[in-house]
């Protein structure tokens, strides 16, 4: 921009007019940064709701008898805990990160389709409230687990059409539609709107992983949505796709469900791999080791993720050849993930480490992820899986992935980009307290699930044999600590946002386009679009990242 236009001059005179105030966040804004924060804050609301469900469940499981809540209530709680945590928390919070960061990181002014973006977001509170309102449905909310396997899910003891399972299926389908809208938008933005000079191998790893994750959404979600709609017809309109007494196949539903819902784990973990890849170089002050291998391995994970779903069905109606084939493909996925783990370790090695809160969460998340990966290989091995699947071993493994790695990664990202998003610094002491409480709670909550699963405690039980009591008491205490751990976090975020110290544009001396603009960035991000001349992560090298914006 050689000559300032009248608009640009006006913006310069009143730089703060384009910054959102609190009312903006309740409006149909098309600014990707506003939508990003809308996603993240909404997701944290559902995180707290589903977390409270989890603590009631752990309260039930602190004694062997079913004494705290009725069995039907317990079944509803674990169903809604799983569902809301996935569709109301993990997907939206990561969509929020993608929304906020991708345009800034690739040097764009906004997403490709800003209005579609806003519509996709506003569906989240709609289906989220539908999930919560289903507690008021006659017969209560859905009680068949987040898998919703038929025939249990099509048994309708309340006898009314508008039952909890019906509302659940509608909400899941809406969530699918919202995610597809988001995926189309994000992939288009990344492919079409990278700034001048940003070739594929100059694109930050986070952007790569977000694109990889959204490609999975595009091929996987139609299968889940189709399965949900067919199940809805079975439940309410008398079709028999999955009804074995009428010649339907309940195993067919399992294929539909897992064809998406296993890759969904990669939809959630890939952006977290991206966050790790952004955070480690900054706080180790070294370039991301093996950057090209790290980004290429993301795409290999996408390809492999399409051929792993049957490992959830090793004990189901699955013939031996299928068990063997999917055992191999599932184990194979540990190779590209292993490449990433080694790359991060090599990035840390020999660096100049600063253990700020986001680095602590990234390191804790990495260790938890390695542990989860090892139990993942055990679950891929058919003979071991036959013993442990549908036991607490799986619950432990899954929560090590989802909480230990993904939630840790999200926290790491929240702390890292908090100054950018809000223009305020957070309180480091509260952050560290939050980290240690979370690490302690995670270990105490999810580690005991492994031995108790090996002993043979099935998942989803409201009561259990007294032999399992010891590990369950530990897990429950861990669960309550984990619940408490969110208190310093929420205090920190709310307190800092209102009252925190003003943040500079680049408090961590990080390299990346998002750190070249003020905190928080102005409405259209860049006054002048950047021209990238160097690869990302040039720590220890004194080359400029762009030729026109400094840095």
């Amino acid at each position: 921009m050689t000559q300032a236009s009248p608009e640009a001059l006006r913006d310069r005179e009143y730089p703060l007019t384009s910054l959102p105030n609190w009312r903006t966040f309740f409006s149909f804004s098309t600014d990707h940064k506003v939508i990003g924060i809308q996603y993240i804050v909404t997701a944290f609301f559902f995180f707290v709701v589903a977390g409270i469900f989890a603590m009631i469940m752990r309260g039930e499981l602190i004694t062997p008898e079913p004494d705290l809540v009725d069995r039907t209530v317990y079944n509803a709680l674990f169903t809604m805990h799983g569902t809301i945590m996935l569709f109301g928390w993990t997907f939206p919070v990561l969509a929020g990160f993608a929304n906020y960061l991708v345009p800034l990181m690739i040097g764009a002014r906004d997403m490709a389709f800003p209005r579609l973006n806003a519509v996709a977001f506003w569906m989240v509170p709609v289906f989220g409230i539908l999930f919560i309102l289903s507690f008021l449905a006659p017969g209560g909310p859905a009680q068949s687990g987040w898998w919703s396997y038929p025939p249990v899910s099509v048994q309708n003891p309340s006898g009314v059409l508008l039952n909890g399972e019906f509302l659940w299926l509608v909400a899941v389908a809406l969530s699918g539609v919202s995610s597809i809208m988001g995926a189309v938008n994000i992939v288009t933005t990344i492919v079409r709107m990278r700034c001048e000079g940003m070739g594929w191998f100059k694109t930050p790893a986070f952007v790569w992983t977000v694109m990889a994750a959204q490609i999975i959404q595009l091929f996987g979600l139609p299968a889940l949505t189709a399965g949900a709609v067919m199940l809805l017809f079975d439940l309410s309109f008398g079709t028999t796709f999955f009804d074995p007494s009428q010649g339907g196949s309940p195993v067919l539903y399992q294929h539909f469900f897992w064809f998406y819902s296993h890759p969904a784990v990669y939809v959630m973990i890939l952006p977290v791999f991206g966050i790790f890849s952004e955070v480690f170089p900054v706080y180790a002050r070294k370039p991301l080791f093996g950057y090209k291998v790290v980004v290429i391995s993301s795409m290999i994970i996408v390809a492999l993720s399409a051929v792993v779903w049957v490992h959830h069905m090793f004990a189901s109606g699955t013939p031996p050849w299928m068990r063997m084939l999917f055992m191999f493909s599932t184990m194979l996925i540990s190779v590209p993930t292993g490449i990433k783990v080694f790359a991060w370790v090599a990035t840390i090695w020999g660096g100049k480490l600063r253990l700020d809160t986001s680095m602590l969460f990234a390191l804790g998340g990495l260790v938890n992820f390695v542990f989860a990966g090892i139990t993942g290989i055990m679950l891929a091995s058919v003979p071991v899986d036959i013993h442990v699947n549908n036991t607490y071993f799986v619950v432990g493994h899954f929560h090590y992935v989802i909480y230990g790695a993904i939630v840790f990664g999200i926290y790491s990202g929240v702390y890292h980009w908090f100054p950018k998003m809000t223009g305020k610094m957070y309180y480091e002491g509260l952050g560290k307290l939050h980290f240690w409480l979370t690490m302690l709670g995670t270990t105490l909550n999810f580690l005991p699930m492994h031995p108790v699963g090996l002993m043979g405690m099935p998942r989803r039980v409201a009561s259990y044999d007294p032999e399992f009591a010891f590990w369950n008491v530990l897990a429950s205490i861990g669960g309550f600590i984990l619940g408490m751990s969110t208190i310093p976090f929420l205090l920190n975020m709310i307190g800092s946002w209102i009252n925190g110290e003003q943040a500079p544009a680049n408090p961590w001396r990080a390299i990346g386009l998002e750190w070249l603009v003020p905190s928080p960035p102005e409405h259209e991000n860049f006054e002048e679009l950047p021209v990238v001349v160097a690869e990302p992560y040039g720590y220890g090298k004194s080359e400029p990242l762009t030729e026109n914006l400094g840095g």
Partner: protein
Amino acid sequence: MKPKTVISLGIMAIALAVLSYFVGQWSYSWLPPQASAESILVDKLFSTLVAIGTFILLGVTGVITFSILFHRAGRYDTSDGPPIEGNTTVEIVWTVIPFLTVIYLAYFSYQTYQAMNIQAPGHMHGAIDPVEKMADTSATTPMTNIEVEGKQWAWTFRYPEKNVTSTELHLPVDQRAHFVLRSPDVIHGFYIPAFRVKQDIIPFEDTDFEFTPIREGKYRLRDSMFSGTYFAAMQADVVVESQEEFQDWLNNAARQTPTPAPNQAASEYARRQQKDEQFGWKTVPPAPAPMVNFHS
């Protein structure tokens, strides 16, 4: 690398390997008693996985811990680390080693699965070459045939030769047992942790299943696939006894007239109907109590 570095790395790797081996051995004690021929095979595989996993976990966390302890930036140190971006040799090595490990683990698992020969839905003889049977007696001794029914929410076991039904599963030791698994309502999971075996029962489909109990005692059978309101209560006892005791029990049971068996789901449901509970939602009523010759 300097020779000193190579030597110290070598020593650490050996120490780690020894430690991992012992954790692998320790892992046997994390599991229930080995009450079936299959459990011995599964546990050996599991122990190997634990040993390899321990090596990886301790290796990675060890390096991270070392970095945290010794590679910290000083308080006022704002300099950067060395700008090392990659190393092709290292990257190839750490792709090839995990790949070979995966191939080995898949092969080991395949061997174990073949040796277990537990049958499965859609099982076709000859679809996969049966590996030589293990050194137990399963191939030569006659099989015990048992029909298993799982329904909301009770297990019943029928011995067709003597027309005996029971809510307690009795099995003669060291004799291969053949099961036909059935369900009239929803998917149930036939799971006995002490035997390390599990199989989902798809409703309206007969599923063949086999294993060999090798240790006398009393074990627990649980439903492993969520089956509705009283899912957690759907358990049964499994008694493994000598051939003679088993025959005595069977003959004795055959003389009894069938009576309705007590059932936890049914009694909880009845209590709930009486109390007209404020909390909790409508549920599928439990199936009528099974008529059996023997119940525990």
